[in-house]
């Protein structure tokens, strides 16, 4: 079975270092999966392309088609690589708006590789104090290594003790290890009669034990 990886980059410029990091991450994950003999595919999405759709979704409650297609791919992917620039000590507002508009259970059980970029390495903990709890709240499963790239990581001033590529490879290895041989999160369509209520349930079950939901 082909492993599907969704890549979401919240970088705003084009080209963006956030997208560069996302590309590096997926290349490393592909290499790890190839080494393990896994079929794989990936699609990369730039939130900039759907920024207006995200705002409209927040205002109207439904996702316009391009955003809905992206969200579908993300919800059905085996893993997510999520990369955001760090603005004012946290993930970008657009990144959070996207997650606010995403179905609450879209990432339930999905392994996530967290990545972030900023001007200096002083923001690197934002992955752990901002991004990680957000994904934990969504019941996603962020892998332990998050990859932070400062501007200097792309040039001569790069960290030579723990270079960017080494951190990328470590995260990619963890994600690939998590994906290979693991049970895929079971995603059921709440509107499909054959999977609804576990396939064999009855409304009588709801009368006895009604689900708690908003």
């Amino acid at each position: 079975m082909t492993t599907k990886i969704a890549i979401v980059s919240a970088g705003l410029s084009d080209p963006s270092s956030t997208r560069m990091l996302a590309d590096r991450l997926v290349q490393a994950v592909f290499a790890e999966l190839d080494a393990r003999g896994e079929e794989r595919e990936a699609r990369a999405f730039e939130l900039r392309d759907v920024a207006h759709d995200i705002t409209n979704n927040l205002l109207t409650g439904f996702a316009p088609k391009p955003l809905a297609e992206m969200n579908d791919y993300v919800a059905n992917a085996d893993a997510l690589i999520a990369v955001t620039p760090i603005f004012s000590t946290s993930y970008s507002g657009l990144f959070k708006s996207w997650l606010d508009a995403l179905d609450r259970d879209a990432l339930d059980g999905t392994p996530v590789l967290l990545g972030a970029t900023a001007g200096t390495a002083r923001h690197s903990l934002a992955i752990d104090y901002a991004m990680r709890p957000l994904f934990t709240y969504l019941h996603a499963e962020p892998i332990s290594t998050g990859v932070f790239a400062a501007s200097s990581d792309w040039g001569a001033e790069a960290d030579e003790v723990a270079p960017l590529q080494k951190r990328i490879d470590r995260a990619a290895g963890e994600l690939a290890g998590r994906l290979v041989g693991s049970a895929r999160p079971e995603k059921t369509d709440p509107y499909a009669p054959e999977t609804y209520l576990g396939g064999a349930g009855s409304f009588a079950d709801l009368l006895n034990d009604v689900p708690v939901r908003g």
Partner: protein
Amino acid sequence: MTDTTWQGMQFGLMSVSDVTRNPITGETPSEAQRIRDIVTIAKHAEDAGLDVFAIGEHHNPPFFSSSPTTTLAYIAAQTERIILSTSTTLITTNDPVRIAEEYAMLQHLAGGRSDLMMGRGNTGPVYPWFGKDIRQGLPLAIENYQLLHRLWREDVVDFDGKFRTALNGFTSTPRPLDDVPPFVWHGSIRTPEIAEQAAYYGDGFFANNIFWPKEHYQRLIGLYRQRFAHYGHGTPEEAIVGLGGQAFMAKSSQDAVDQFRPYFNAAPVYGNGPSMEDFTEMTPLTVGSPQQVIDRYAAMRDTFGDYQRQLFLMDHAGLPLKVVLEQIDFLGHDVVPVLRRELQKNRPANVPDAPTHAALVTAKYGDAAPRQPRPNANRGDNVTGGSPYQDSESAFGKAADK
């Protein structure tokens, strides 16, 4: 004139009862004005040949309709033909006993020209205002409706649930007209359990079909139809489906676009969001000539299957009364007669007609006379078992009635 004898489908209006500033004049109508206007609108809908007028229930400004049965009973007294309904009645925060009583009263006063649609409410605080927890919204809808359903079908109810005080030997009065409960629709925007609920009871399912793309509602209705069959009420095609809709018309489509745009841009539900062009493409809102509305809505059955009720949202977004009445004329004179003709064509014979009290009475009694419950003399012991009505044996047998 048009053929209004076809019972297959009902067309009508659904009002949210918003009191919205007119963006062109800058004036906000008073609540008193809007309440007077809504009566005019409902009567005009009947005059224009529409079949249904439905109004919502809200408990916060800028909406005025907190008590739909009062409004609907007043309208019933001034109309002869139109069916009065809700969009929606809050099954979550209302006491199901009061719903049973109020809507049975309305059903009697309206001579059977009433039904209702269950909904869960539009604003979070309505739950705490009525002492409920929003996280229990779905459980409330399920338990409360279970009780309501029994109150209209059993003369004497014992009930012990999670959400309201227990009932022992309780009789909801008056009994429904002809002892046939009002037809119930369950409305939902996104919740599969509500489609399931409608299917389980063999009730109608109404998809709001206003805010979101129709593909979304297609899945909800698909689920409802299949589960309706699963519970043995008939084939999926025999399920009872209603749809919302939204249109603004002028003789020429460009005039419609120009006239509606300022209202669209300032409307609370979609203002400052997508452009009107994008929104009309993504959702069933149609702004254009009557022919465009006909084309769009005649095609709904291709998505949802043949259905029974089509309601349009027309009085909203600050549109002045005069414009709303014109829109109703377009609907009644230009659109609905054509839709009736078109939707009759190729409609499979097993697709049921739209629900009416008369049809439900016939289904229950055939040619026999409907039950007319008459209470026994009040002996102060209506809670000691048996039925308080003369046509039922008391718990102590006939002798005890003396």
